[in-house]
């Protein structure tokens, strides 16, 4: 949910002659929106939907089975998944059955529940400085936003004074290498690449060697998008990991799975398959700036307990933020943004 001015800024950055994006980003946003504002902005639609639903439900009647079922539906609509929705609806029902319960109370319980699930997995991404280069492999299905996420991470870490190298490991999709090279130019980061159709595993090997020679702090390795049920493509990913270990025995030091927030319950299958093949160490959820979404993170956290490191709430190169359970839970439940929600509901 960027404003028009920001859009222009981003636009200019994209098609200007490169330059130092970090400085430009600063100039574009004299008054940077706080992380909280942007998260609630991104999630507001989803929380509004939930808030509206809950308000409708509980301002009217007593808590009975039908009401609970409807609460479950509201949560399902937010992509929490049937199991998580049932559990949370059950929590709300426990000890409150046949009692009148206000919307605020339900919201608080919802936030609490979501937070309790997400709290253990909200862990910041840690770069082990003793590993040089610190090798990060980025994986995910097609179109989940891997390359853009890499650009955002590179911008973030470059801004923190780290030397970042990018490896354009998507040798399959047309112009994917080009896309990362353009980002590399903008960020002044070296990009290791091979021609389209080249072996990504070979590129990974070369990139690690090259990053070592250049003394890079971090190597960010892009990969081609692959659907998790395509065994041949998953085998290729396994090979990339294997070959990386030949160049650096404990590589990759981190494997980030990029999940698209618009994906529904299939995200669980994605986590499952990529975890098995590439040993995912953490998650990044992108595209949280649309409507009703984000609930799937609750289901994933319940099932896998994998750390959620970042969420993407916009298209700007700094629209990637560390994940915080409390903020996310409260934003989803519509707490602390009541004024805004009420305003828009009115």
């Amino acid at each position, binding site marked *: 949910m960027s404003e028009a001015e920001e859009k222009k800024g981003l636009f200019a950055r994209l098609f200007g002659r490169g330059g130092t994006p970090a400085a430009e980003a600063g100039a574009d946003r004299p008054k940077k929106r706080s992380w909280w504002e942007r998260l609630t902005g991104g999630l507001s*639609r989803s929380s509004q939907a939930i808030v509206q639903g809950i308000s409708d439900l509980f301002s009217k009647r007593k808590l009975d089975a039908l009401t609970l079922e409807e609460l479950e539906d509201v949560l399902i609509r937010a992509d929490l998944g049937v199991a998580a929705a049932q559990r949370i609806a059950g929590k709300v029902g426990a000890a409150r059955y046949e009692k009148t319960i206000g919307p605020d109370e339900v919201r608080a319980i919802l936030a609490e529940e979501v937070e309790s699930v997400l709290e253990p997995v909200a862990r910041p991404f840690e770069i082990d400085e003793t590993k040089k280069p610190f090798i990060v492999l980025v994986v995910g299905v097609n*179109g989940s936003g891997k390359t853009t996420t890499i650009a955002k991470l590179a911008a973030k870490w470059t801004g923190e004074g780290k030397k970042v190298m990018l490896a354009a490991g998507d040798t399959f999709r*047309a112009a994917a290498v080009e*896309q990362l090279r353009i980002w590399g130019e903008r960020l002044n980061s070296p990009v290791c690449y091979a021609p389209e159709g080249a072996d990504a595993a070979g590129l990974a090997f070369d990139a690690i060697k090259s990053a070592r020679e250049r003394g890079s702090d971090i190597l960010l390795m892009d990969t081609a998008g692959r659907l998790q049920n395509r065994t041949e493509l998953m085998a290729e990913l396994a090979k990339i990991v294997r070959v990386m270990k030949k160049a650096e025995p404990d590589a990759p030091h981190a494997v980030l799975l990029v999940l698209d927030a618009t994906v*529904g*319950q*299939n995200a669980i299958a994605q986590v499952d398959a990529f975890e098995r093949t590439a040993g995912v160490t953490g998650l990044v959820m992108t595209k949280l*700036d*649309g409507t*009703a979404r984000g609930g799937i993170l609750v289901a994933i956290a319940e099932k896998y307990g994998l750390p959620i490191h970042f969420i993407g709430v916009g298209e700007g190169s700094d629209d990637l933020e560390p994940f915080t359970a409390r903020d996310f839970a409260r934003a989803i439940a519509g707490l602390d943004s009541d004024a805004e929600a009420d305003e828009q509901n009115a």
Partner: protein
Amino acid sequence: MFEGLSDKLSGIFDKLTRRGALSEADVAEALREVRRALLEADVALDVVRTFTDSVQAKAVGANVVKSVSPGQMVVKIVNDVLVETLGSTAQPIDLDAAPPVAIMLVGLQGAGKTTTAAKIAKRLKERHGKRVLMASLDVKRPAAQEQLAILGRQVEVDTLSIVPGQDPVKIAKRAEETARREGYDVVLLDTAGRTHIDEPLMEEMAQIKAVSKPHEILLVVDALTGQDAVNLAKNFDDRVGLTGIVLTRVDGDGRGGAALSMRAVTGKPIKLIATGEKMDALDEFSPQRIANRILGMGDIVALVEKAAAAVDQEQAQRAAERMAKGKFDLQDLADQLAMMEKVGGFGGIMGLLPGVAKMKEQIASANIDDKMFKRQRAIILSMTPKERRNPDILKASRKRRIAAGSGAKVEEINKLLKQHRQMADMMKAMGGGKGGGMMAKAAQMMGMGGMQAPSPEQLAQLQKKMGGALPPGAGPSIPAAPPASAFSAKPTLPGLGGGGGFLSGLNPFGKKK
């Protein structure tokens, strides 16, 4: 795609069909499970409600409880409602307008618009003989325009020259002018990905529409999209008025919720589905077929089509004739293995067969994979023609030679020979009998007469039959599908009633592990 949902549903319906009589409570219980299965498959909640209500209403009206086979009746009603939900008839892309016909693709970031553009262009060029011009209006994502240009070269379709810095509306105008001037039939506009709440970009999209007056505006949607699919489609439709939907990543293992929701929510037809990364992996959307697949009946029609395209008809006929006589030598086996590969490997076939959902675990535990078939073929190809026709002459020294030639072990050759013997025996039992062999019976059942490979008309007829009211569990119809040689090794699939001879017959390496 859809397997997860079809697994669930077939489980639910199994319970129903097994019972002789059904009470209303049974039906209600089944519908509750259907509801949950649909929700887990990401079908939009409102669509699920309408769906179950509609089934319920029809089930009561049809007097399910009193009907002869109540379970079957419910399955049929669900099937009908499913088809209704998906849109009853297939609707292809409409090019019926004065050229250049503009087609505009819109959607979220990462939905697959650019790849889809190239696929559609290739299809229009090759199947409809159209001259197509593609233009990328995506000035947001780095290298997006280059991507389309590269894909254009791959599929040999022209793309509009890239003018750096030009805005999307101007590019759209330039595309239209170029297409008119240079006599293109179709101009395909690939737009930047946008979220439906991003006001400036939605406005830009409306402007592009005003400039290029597209005849088709297709929303490209990831088939893996969750509950948000509904909002997405509604918002895009409100702003530009969609004419249809293209579902991408249908080859994923999502449960197809978006497919079910889209049509119901927007009332717009799903026109195409993208089923893979290759440039020709684009199919027309057939509601009937998808409904069959969701209900776990397998996509028999797709199988027939796919096989018909891949299988050399003459070869198939030769093989079928030989088999009808009960003959089956190593060359036939090698041909079958080769055909299997063409049709998409073992996994490809199995995914399309009805009832397979149930035997997935069995397959996994049997450790069958396509590599094994390749190795078997390699062994056979290392034999002389004489040896292939007459395996009995294979003695120790010949086997050693073959082992060296194919990089296999002698034991593997023995296993292959043993397996072949079993299969040959099976063939004899099936084909050799007096006119009443299983194969012949199966063929008769399908109204195909003898054991010849079918003519195109017969194929069409067969498809019609199979697309229609084929009862679930009609196992023997599969081997009768035309490329008899490709499938005849498995007259009965385990789980479909019958002896389960297939897995034991065709799996020499995995069996003894």
